[in-house]
C-alpha cells in the first residue's frame, strides 16, 4: 500500500538516532526488544488515541481534487473500509440519468444513454423494471441457436456432455448479461445467482433448471416466491446435501441446507436463530430430496415425523405426504420474519446503491419488503430513487461486470464467447464456480488487487478481430482525427464523462498522426484498463 504520510519511517529514523547516541556501546538483545516494544507501544498507542476521533464524513459531493483527505489513523480500522466511500468523478453528472444508467446496466453504452435521456430518471427505471415489455427476442434467438442446452430439461441434460452443459450455461449467461436490453433484470439475475449460489462442479446439469426456473423466473418477482422455488429446486437440494439427509431413527439429519437457508438465504447470520434451530429445521426438512433425473420430491419414508421447535414455534410432526407441510410452514415463517426483510433490504441496498447503506435506508427498504410482501421491483424503485443515488459513493465493478461492460462498449461481432469465458476464470469470476454458498463477494477489498488480469483482458479483447471468436471493428475510430477517436471512446466507454486525466493520457498516447488499426486497439485497451472504467 502507498504511504499516506511522509512520516512512514518515523520509527526507523527515531531508532537509528537512539542507537547512535548510546554512550556505553553495550546493548543486550533483550534490551533491544524492550526498547523497541516500548517505542512501538508509544506509536501504536497514539494511533489508538486517534481512533477516538469521529470518522470522516461521507463524501457526497463531486471531488474538487483527486484525493480525499487522509482520515484519522485508527487502531481499530475504520468502520468504512477504503474504496467503499469513493465520491464520483468530478466529470460525472451526479444528478443526471447517467448515474442511474450505470447502476441499472452491466456497462453503460450510448444506446442506454439515449434511452434514459428520452425517458427521464423514473421513466427509464420503470422501463427496465417492466422488463417483460422489452423485446429481447434477438438475444434469446441467438442463445437458443448458439447454446441450445440451456433450454433443455434435466432429463435431456443428464445425458449431455457435462463440460458442454457447463460452458454453454456460462457463455449464454455472459451473452445475455452483455447484450440483452433487459439490463436491470440481468443485474438482478446476477445478484440472486450469488444469493442462492451453487457450484456447478458439484451440481452439474441440475443448475440449468435452477437458473431458468428459480433465478431467471423470479429475479424481479417476489422474494417469497424466489425462496420457495429455490427450496424446491433439485439443484439446491444437491448443492447443500439436503438430498442425503435422513430423518429415520438412528440417522442424524444433515444440517447443511437447514443452516444456510437461515444464515444466507433469509434471516442472516445475526438474524436470531440458534444452533438448536439449525438442528430442528434439519429435522423438519428431512424428506426434501431428489428423485429421478433432477426432480425435486418429498420422500415421507425418510421424514422425521416427531414434533419440532423452530424459532420458538412448535412444528407439529406430520406423517405421509403431509410431512412436507412442516417445511412449507417454516418457509412461510422465514419469508415473513423481520430479520429477512432487513437482511434482503440490506443486501439489495449494498448491491444497487452503497456498500454501507444507512440505518434509515435499510429500515425504509425493509418496510417496503414487509408492506409489499417482498416485492423486488418495489424495493428497487425505492433504492434507486433520485435522491439516494446521486449522494451514493461509486462502486467498484466486479470482474464479471467489468467483462460485460467491456463487451458492451466494444460492441464486437460475436461468434463464440468461449475465450471470454476462459478469461473470466483468469479474472476469478467465471459464473457458477464459487465453491461456497455465500456467492462471489461484492467487496472492493477482495477484487481491486487483481488488476493485472483486467489489463491483460483489455489487451486480449481489443486485439480480437476474428470471425470465429470476436471481431471488433475500428473503422469508426479511424474516420477522423486522434482527438475525434478519443471523443468516440468517451461516448462508447464513459457515457461522455471521461475523466480529464484519462482523456489527457489517451490524447498523449494517440499522438497526432493518423491512427492505425493497431493504435486504435491499444487506445481501446487503455480505456478499458483505466481507473474510471473500473467504477460504476
Amino acid at each position, binding site marked *: *500500500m502507498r504511504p499516506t504520510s511522509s512520516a512512514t519511517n518515523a520509527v*526507523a529514523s527515531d531508532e537509528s538516532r537512539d542507537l547512535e547516541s548510546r554512550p556505553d556501546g553495550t546493548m543486550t538483545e533483550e534490551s533491544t526488544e524492550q526498547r523497541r516494544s516500548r517505542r512501538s507501544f508509544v506509536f501504536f498507542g497514539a494511533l489508538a488515541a486517534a481512533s477516538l476521533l469521529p470518522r470522516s464524513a461521507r463524501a457526497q459531493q463531486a471531488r474538487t481534487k483527486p484525493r480525499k483527505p487522509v482520515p484519522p489513523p485508527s487502531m481499530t480500522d475504520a468502520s468504512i473500509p477504503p474504496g467503499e466511500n469513493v465520491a464520483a468523478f468530478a466529470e460525472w453528472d451526479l444528478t443526471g440519468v447517467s448515474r442511474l444508467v450505470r447502476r441499472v446496466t452491466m456497462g453503460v453504452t450510448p444506446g442506454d444513454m439515449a434511452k434514459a435521456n428520452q425517458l427521464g430518471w423514473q421513466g427509464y427505471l420503470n422501463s427496465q423494471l417492466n422488463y417483460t415489455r422489452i423485446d429481447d427476442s434477438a438475444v434469446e434467438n441467438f442463445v437458443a441457436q448458439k447454446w441450445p442446452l440451456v433450454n433443455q430439461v434435466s432429463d435431456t441434460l443428464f445425458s449431455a456432455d457435462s463440460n458442454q452443459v457447463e460452458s454453454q450455461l456460462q457463455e449464454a449467461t455472459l451473452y445475455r448479461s452483455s447484450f440483452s436490453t433487459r439490463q436491470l433484470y440481468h443485474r438482478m439475475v446476477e445478484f440472486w445467482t450469488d444469493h442462492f449460489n451453487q457450484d456447478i462442479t458439484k451440481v452439474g446439469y441440475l443448475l440449468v433448471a435452477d437458473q431458468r426456473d428459480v433465478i431467471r423466473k423470479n429475479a424481479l418477482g417476489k422474494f417469497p416466491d424466489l425462496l420457495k422455488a429455490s427450496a424446491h429446486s433439485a439443484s439446491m437440494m444437491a448443492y447443500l446435501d439436503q438430498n442425503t439427509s435422513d430423518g429415520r431413527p438412528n440417522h442424524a439429519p444433515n444440517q447443511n441446507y437447514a443452516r444456510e437457508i437461515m444464515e444466507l438465504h433469509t434471516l442472516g447470520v445475526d438474524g436470531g436463530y440458534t444452533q438448536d434451530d439449525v438442528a430442528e429445521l434439519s429435522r423438519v426438512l428431512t424428506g426434501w430430496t431428489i428423485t429421478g433425473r433432477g426432480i425435486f420430491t418429498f420422500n415421507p419414508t425418510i421424514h422425521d415425523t416427531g414434533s419440532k421447535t423452530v424459532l420458538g414455534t412448535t412444528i407439529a410432526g406430520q406423517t405421509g405426504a403431509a410431512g412436507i407441510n412442516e417445511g412449507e410452514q417454516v418457509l412461510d415463517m422465514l419469508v415473513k420474519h423481520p430479520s429477512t426483510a432487513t437482511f434482503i433490504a440490506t443486501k439489495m441496498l449494498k448491491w444497487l446503491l452503497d456498500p454501507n447503506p444507512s440505518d434509515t435506508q435499510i429500515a425504509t427498504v425493509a418496510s417496503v419488503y414487509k408492506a409489499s410482501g417482498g416485492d423486488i421491483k418495489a424495493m428497487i424503485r425505492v433504492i434507486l430513487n433520485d435522491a439516494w443515488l446521486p449522494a451514493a459513493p461509486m462502486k467498484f465493478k466486479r470482474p464479471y461486470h467489468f467483462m460485460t461492460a467491456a463487451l458492451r462498449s466494444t460492441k464486437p461481432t460475436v461468434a463464440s464467447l468461449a475465450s471470454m469465458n476462459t478469461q473470466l476464470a483468469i479474472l476469478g469470476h467465471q459464473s457458477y464456480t464459487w465453491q461456497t454458498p455465500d456467492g462471489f463477494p461484492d467487496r472492493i477489498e477482495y477484487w481491486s488487487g487483481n488488476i493485472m*488480469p483486467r489489463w491483460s483482458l483489455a489487451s486480449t479483447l481489443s486485439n480480437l478481430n476474428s470471425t470465429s471468436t470476436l471481431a471488433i471493428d475500428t473503422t469508426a475510430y479511424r474516420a477522423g482525427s486522434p482527438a475525434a477517436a478519443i471523443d468516440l471512446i468517451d461516448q462508447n466507454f464513459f457515457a461522455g464523462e471521461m475523466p480529464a486525466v484519462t482523456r489527457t493520457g489517451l490524447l498523449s498516447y494517440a499522438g497526432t498522426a493518423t491512427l492505425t488499426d493497431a493504435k486504435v486497439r491499444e487506445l481501446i485497451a487503455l480505456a478499458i*484498463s483505466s481507473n474510471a472504467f473500473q467504477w460504476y
Partner: protein
Amino acid sequence: MDELHDADCGCQEYNDLSRRQFLGTAVGMSAMAVFPDWLPKIVMSKNYASNRDIIVSVFMRGGADGLSLVVPFADANYYSSRPTIAIPRPDDTSVAAAARGTNLDNFFMLSPAMAGLFPAFQATDLLIVHGAGQLYVSRSHFDAQRYMEVGKPVDQTLVSGWLGRHLASIPPLKPGAPLRALGVASGLQKTLVPPPVITSGMYDTNTLPIADPTNFSIGGASATQTARINFLKGDYAGADEPVHGEALAATATIDLLKSVSFSTYKPQNAAVYPNSSFGRAMRSVAALITQDVGIEAAQVDLGGWDTHSGQDPNAGSMFRTMQDFANTLAAFYADIVATRTNVTLVAFSEFGRNVRENGSNGTDHGRASALFAMGKGIAGGRVITKNWQPLVRQNLEAGQDLKVTIDYKDVLSEIVQNRLGNPNLSFVFPAWTPTMLGVTR
C-alpha cells in the same frame, strides 16, 4: 529463540546495517570498523534478508475435520462415534497396511492420506496442535473465517487481517521490495488486508492477490508495453485507495515476476508438487522464496473441507483433499522448509466438525480442529493438546463437538513474535493476551 533469531531486530536500519556489514566483510576487514561493536553478531547467509522468517499461511476453507486429519485412535469413542467413516488404527490387521493410520505418539495417528507429512513430523519440523480453533463460538463458515482472518472475533470495525497488520507493523525484509506479500488467489484474502490507512510508524504492505504468478502480464505488443504502463501509472496516480496502491504495485511487479523462472524451477530434494491448484500455488510460492525477490508472506487457500456428506476419509472425497494437502506440504517441506532455516508455514481451518457422523456419511459443522505448524524454528515432532478428554457426550461442546482448548491466536502470536520478529502482538491480534505454548524453538 535460535541463533539466527537472537539477532533479529526487525528494523530497517538494522537490515541496512547488516547488508553493509556483509558488503564490508566482502571488501575487507577494515570496513568493519565503521560499525558499532554493540551490533549483535548474526549468522550471515547468502543475503541479509534471511534473518527473520518468511511466513506461508494456508487456510483450509470449509471446516476441516480434524478428527480425520489427525486421529485420536486410542480413544474407542472415536470409532463408536463414526461407524462408517472411521480410519483404521495403525495396528488394525484386518485391513491392508496402506489403509492404516501412521502412529504419531500412541494416541494420535496421521490418516493414510496424510502419510506424506510423516517425514516432517519425524524430523521434528512439523508440529500438530489438536483441539485448536477459535474460542469464540461460530458455526458459520463465513463468520468463523472472517474472525480468524481478521484476528479478532465479532468486531465489525476491524477490517484488516492479522497478516496485513503484521506486515504493516514491521519493516520490509527487503527494503524497497515492490511485492512483500501475495495471496495466491483471484481476490485478496481477508488475512492479508492491510490497515485502511498506513500512518506514521507503519509500513506499506505491498500486497497483491495473484492467482497465477507464472502468468502476470499486461499483454499486447511488447514494443509498446512501457508506454502503456506509463499511461496506467498516470491514470491511476489520482485513484483512491486501495485501487491506487494496488495498481502501482501491479505495475512494479511485472518485471519482478518476469525475473522469476517458474517454468524451469527445480524443487530441491527432487520434491514433486501435486499438479493440483494447491500444489501449483505452493510450487510458485517456493519459486518466489528461492529466488529471493523480497516476498515475506504468502496466503494460500485450500477448499473442499465442507464434508457434510460422503466424507469417506479412507478412499473418497476427503481422502483426496487430505492427500492434496499433505502431499503438497510434503513437497514444500522437502523443497523449502528442510533446506532453509527461515520459512515457517501454518495451516488451519475455521472449525472442525461434529464428533458423531450424520446420516449422510458425513459430519456437520463443529468446533475444534487440528492446526499445523512447520519450520526449522518450530518445536515439532509432537501433537500438543490442552486438557484433552475422551470423546464422550458429556465432554463435548454442546454435546457434539471437540472443544476448542487452544486458540489459534496463541500459536500465531508466538510465531509472529519469535519467528517473524514482530513484537507488536497487540496490534496484530488486538485485545488478545497470548499464552505462549512453546511452539517455537
